[in-house]
């Protein structure tokens, strides 16, 4: 007998095989148990589903298109003398410009149902913060977003966007002043204000039930993709590719395909300056199992169990852990995990902009090189879907910087 099907995970203790769980301070145990119960009840309530469907359709703008990237496919074929078709799942077309809002709609409707009035969130690239602030504004809730001071600098447009939406952005200066520290600070806030506060986690990590709940709210990506590719091509794709920080866009598109064994699932971690330099954010490729932020998963850590700094040009991937379900899929070999460097992502970003007229987020750009390689390996009968999880407008300053261009001065002057 093989290992049980992943689709039935997590178990009642929030475990995905050896990963997951509820590693939190006692103060937070009662609230996470309360959340778990509230989520179970909501899931079974057709009225909750109907409300979510309404918001996803009319507010978020779902379904997002599945688009045949014809010129990128031609480019891949020309380089190689034949390549499979590349399709983009256009999550960047959602309201607020990323997949993050799918989850925020779900969690904040749940918060409303639980009678919570104060929403807190952590954010790295700012996309989850913007999505949370957006839905909080729409539902008339107070919203506080914790963001690392380093990320505030590299994602200025999103910081201002959150403020315009009425959220308070609190800069986090501790530790590395990036996503993981923002998460520490959000947990501290929650520990202090457990009564009225709902913590809206942005990825498939954290203590149970977050990895399961966030996954469930994101699987709409995979369900739509399945129906759309069947309609367009009459068959399932050979492979699905997605970038991974915590792993929510990847889990959202992977999960409905887990039992379709012929569909390869490929997650792309951020290799930063290169895995061999130690300056990366590839927890599976370059980390080891450990305990952080409420779950047991693969972490970047030193030989003493201290957490190492992650590095990626993309703030959204700059996290030293990964969702526990990915750790499990890696462990049982159901999904494959590769990596892309800062430079590879930058090059792919430019290629996509010029060939398809789409600026993908730097996060999503990490998944492009593997997508192109795969299409080439598969040859002209192949079919690859990549999740374009967000749009790249927020990244133009970072990209200009990396390319040594001065936006204000212009490049032709």
């Amino acid at each position, binding site marked *: 007998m093989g290992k049980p099907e992943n689709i039935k995970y997590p178990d009642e203790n929030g475990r995905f095989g050896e990963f997951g769980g509820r590693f939190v301070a006692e103060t937070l145990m009662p609230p996470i148990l309360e959340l778990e119960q509230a989520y179970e009840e909501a899931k079974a309530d057709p009225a909750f589903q109907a409300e979510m469907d309404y918001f996803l359709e009319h507010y978020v703008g779902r379904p997002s298109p599945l688009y045949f990237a014809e010129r990128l496919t031609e480019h891949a074929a020309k380089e190689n003398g034949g390549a499979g078709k590349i399709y983009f799942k256009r999550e960047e077309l959602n309201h607020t410009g990323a997949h993050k809002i799918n989850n925020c709609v779900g969690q904040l409707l749940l918060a409303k149902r639980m009678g919570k009035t104060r929403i807190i969130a952590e954010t790295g690239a700012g996309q989850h913060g913007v999505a949370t602030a957006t839905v909080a504004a729409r539902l008339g809730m107070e919203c506080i977003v914790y963001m690392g001071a380093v990320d505030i600098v590299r994602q200025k447009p999103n910081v201002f966007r959150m403020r315009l939406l009425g959220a308070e952005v609190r800069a986090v200066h501790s530790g590395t002043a990036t996503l993981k520290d923002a998460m520490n600070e959000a947990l501290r806030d929650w*520990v202090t204000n457990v009564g009225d506060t709902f913590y809206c986690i942005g990825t498939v990590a954290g203590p149970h039930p977050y990895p399961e709940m966030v996954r469930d709210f994101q699987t709409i990506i995979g369900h739509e993709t399945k129906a759309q590719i069947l309609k367009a091509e009459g068959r399932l794709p050979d492979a699905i590719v997605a970038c991974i920080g915590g792993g929510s866009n990847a889990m959202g598109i992977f999960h409905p395909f887990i039992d379709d064994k012929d569909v390869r699932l490929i997650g792309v971690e951020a290799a930063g300056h290169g895995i061999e330099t130690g300056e990366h954010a590839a927890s599976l490729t370059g980390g080891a199992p450990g305990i952080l932020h409420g779950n047991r998963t693969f972490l970047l850590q030193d*030989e003493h169990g201290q957490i190492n700094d992650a590095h990626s040009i993309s703030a959204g991937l700059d996290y030293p852990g990964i969702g526990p379900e990915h750790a499990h899929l890696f462990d049982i070999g159901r999904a494959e995990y590769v990596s892309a460097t800062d430079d590879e992502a930058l090059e792919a970003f430019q290629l996509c902009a010029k060939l398809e007229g789409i600026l993908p987020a730097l996060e999503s750009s990490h998944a492009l090189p593997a997508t192109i390689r795969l299409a080439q390996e598969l040859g002209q009968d192949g079919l690859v879907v990549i999740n374009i999880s967000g749009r790249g407008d927020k990244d133009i300053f970072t990209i200009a910087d990396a390319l040594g261009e001065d936006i204000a001065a212009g490049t032709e002057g």
Partner: protein
Amino acid sequence: MTQRLDQTFADNDTVFIAYMMGGDPDRAVSQSFMNALPGAGVDIIELGIPFTDPMADGPVIEEAGIRARKSGTTLTTILDMATEFRRTNMHTPIIVMGYANPLHNMGYTEFAQAAHEAGIDGAIIVDLPPEEDHELRAAFEAYDLALIRLATPTTDAKRLPKVVSGTKGFVYYVSMTGVTGAKLSQNNAIKDQVARVKDASGLPVAVGFGVKTPERAREIAKDADGVVVGTAIVKELHKNGPDAALTFVRSLADAAHGA
């Protein structure tokens, strides 16, 4: 040794527990501060293990951890500090306090064996609630170490039996919802909570998080079997050095004992 803990609670009306961050600001200063604590009236030493991501701690203890890690402190250093302390003191219990990952990284059994050999008596691991501590607890039982659990204001009557079952030594009552060093809640609430936890566990109850002055220590001591002070001591040590910190510790210990 859990016996050393039991004896300490049996011998004292109120036990005074002092927290210090191991290796802050460096091994030498931290070691001599630790060695001097019993002489300043400390009954149990809570020795902090620095961690990069101390989610339940306020800024004072987080910064102490950063200083300790900068000076090279690791989990092994903490074990070495206990070993050295035991060369001259066999009666003051040492409880280590920290987060799961450094222990997980070393291996729970390897840690338990090393802690036992170092003369450590137990541990408080903040991010291992009862639901997740069975592996470490099994390792601790094999080496006669106490895994001390935390009860909090959010631990309701339904959950309390689960929190106190299998606990040894004492139960640590976190007097408020919040991080270490924040403001303390009302005393009458604490009195009722201590009684509730004592009732459920049949063990001594120590109260911590938010006790900053001798006056507060004296008040808490009236209702609890033990008083824990951490942040205020760490702050004093950092600001005014070991001598001033030991004088401050003495004033806290006297207040706790005099109640």
